[in-house]
């Protein structure tokens, strides 16, 4: 078990390095010479060269990457151009908000997929199962920003039940208010995953139900509720694995839903920074989310291996 985790950790380092290379390259493909932003248009060549050397832009690309990486590893992600704050100060509270939203969505999707998936596996020929099947297929094609707009249209505009933006209403605080603000964004985010997860739960549970030990339990006269418990325990590693991976995917695609709901998460920070051409923030935001994604996948894999010994032998 420990060797499995260590092997995965070892694999993680080149992946993280690869991620950092991509993010670094992203900044390098921005068209236009960054020197132009600093020197006046009539500056001489030597002045430009001086600024370039000062910014470290005259060194070979690999060296620039090394310097940048060194700073990143020490936690220095640069300063925001528009807000003049260290980027890390802006990103960490925002990341926390995104995690809140994504976790709520992942839990919701997990519970919904569990209920619907188990039902569809137990009663595969029922009309309800066919309906769920169709709905989950349709939900794969649903763009999450559109779902978000529809939900706002129904619940905020027409019915006026739920707030449509932000994380809390000015003046009020506390869990109740947070939950009210959380409902619609969570629903919009969860809907994009629940289709995939339902199909996964259904196929996993179907597979388990066909196994001999279920037949043996039934022959023994074990109650259906207890059999369900056995089924769930067998299926949990796979289902949790998919949930964890979906959590990572949701985290990474948080930008779209957060912009619709003005949810103050890291997606919103990146979006605003794009609009303001604040590249250090965009780059740092993308880097942080990508790293979180990679780390999360590692944790999910490790937990999966811990729960299911069959994985470790691979």
């Amino acid at each position, binding site marked *: 078990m420990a060797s499995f985790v260590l092997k995965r950790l070892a694999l993680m380092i080149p992946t993280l390095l690869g991620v950092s290379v991509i993010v670094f390259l*992203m900044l390098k493909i921005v068209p236009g010479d960054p020197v132009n932003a600093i020197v006046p248009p009539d500056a001489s060549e030597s002045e430009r060269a001086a600024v370039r050397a000062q910014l470290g832009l005259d060194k070979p690309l690999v060296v620039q990457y090394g310097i940048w990486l060194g700073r990143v590893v020490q936690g220095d992600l640069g300063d925001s151009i528009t807000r003049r704050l260290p980027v890390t100060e802006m990103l960490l509270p925002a990341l926390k908000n995104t995690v809140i939203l994504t976790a709520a969505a992942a839990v919701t999707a997990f519970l919904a997929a569990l209920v619907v998936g188990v039902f569809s596996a137990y009663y595969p020929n029922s009309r309800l199962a066919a309906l769920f099947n169709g709905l989950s297929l349709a939900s794969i*094609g649903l763009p999450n920003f559109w779902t978000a707009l529809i939900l706002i249209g129904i619940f*905020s505009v027409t019915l006026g039940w739920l707030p449509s933006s932000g994380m809390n209403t000015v003046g009020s605080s506390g869990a109740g208010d947070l939950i009210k603000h959380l409902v619609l964004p969570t629903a919009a985010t969860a809907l994009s995953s629940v289709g995939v997860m339902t199909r996964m739960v259904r196929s996993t549970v179907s597979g388990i139900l066909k196994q001999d030990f279920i037949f043996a339990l039934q022959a023994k006269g074990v109650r259906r509720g207890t059999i369900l418990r056995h089924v769930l325990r067998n299926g949990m590693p796979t289902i949790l694995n998919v949930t964890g991976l979906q959590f990572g995917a949701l985290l990474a*695609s948080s930008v779209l839903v957060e*912009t619709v709901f003005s949810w103050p998460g890291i997606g919103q920070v990146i*979006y605003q920074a794009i609009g303001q051409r604040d590249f250090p923030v965009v780059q740092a935001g993308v880097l942080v*989310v990508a790293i979180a994604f990679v780390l999360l996948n590692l944790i999910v894999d490790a937990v999966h291996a811990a729960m299911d010994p069959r994985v470790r032998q691979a």
Partner: protein
Amino acid sequence: MAINAPTTSDAARLAAARREPSRAAQVWRAFARRKVAMAALGVLLLIVLACLLAPWIAPYGPTDGAVTDRLKEVGSPGHPLGTDEQGRDILSRILYGGRLSLLSGVLPVVLAGLIGGGLGVAAGYFGGWTNTIIMRALDIVFSFPAILLAIGISAALGPGIGNIIISATVVFIPPIARIAESATKEVRKEEFIEAAKTSGAGAGLIVRSHVLRNIFGKLFVFATSQIGVCLMVASGLSFLGLGVSPPTPEWGFMLNNLKQLIFVNPIVTIVPGLFIFLTSLSLNLVSDALSDALEIKR
């Protein structure tokens, strides 16, 4: 003796007697049996045709409008899908915008298919270091969350639909290359490849006449399944303002414009997204059915 030698007229008579349909006809029949897929195909063709014929069938130009006509309801006289915040007819903008949206959904997959397919075949056919270098490099890109990668590249390159197409292409190259590589590795093990090599055929000839023909089915099916995803990625990027600039219509971008007005007229706001959803859904259903139909006769 002539009795045992099949003549052309014999072969023709045999074929006519058996009346064996071509492979394409077989696949089509298997596809057509699924009514849902046929309906989806119909919807898809309707949308694509309507958008292609936009200059001839749209009731108004995409930028015609007066602010006095803003935000008319769906079903208003002369404006079946309402008007947007500047008084432009939404139906016309959907038709014109669909051309850009569909293009940004299909073109990246085609380009990624060519580039990724090429890389995958090279990695799968030559193996060894070529394989390791190509596949590891692609793995690095693949481990980056897709939407984020697209957002990052688009943000860096700047707004414009060309840049969306570029970033979407980059996102789809690794998965397509993976499929191409594994399919190529399978084909390479076949005996006819070894026979071809023994007879002195060079790598280029083998790839062209044997490998490509055999992996094309899998690649094609996979690529079509990705068009729906690409459409959503591209319209998501447009929605964030990374694509076209006003006043160009495009489905995702229209949602961006209309979203501020959701409190004024919620239904009109939602129309462009409906088209993204319908197109994406039909694409998914069609490609699912296509992959099933091709599998049956494999």
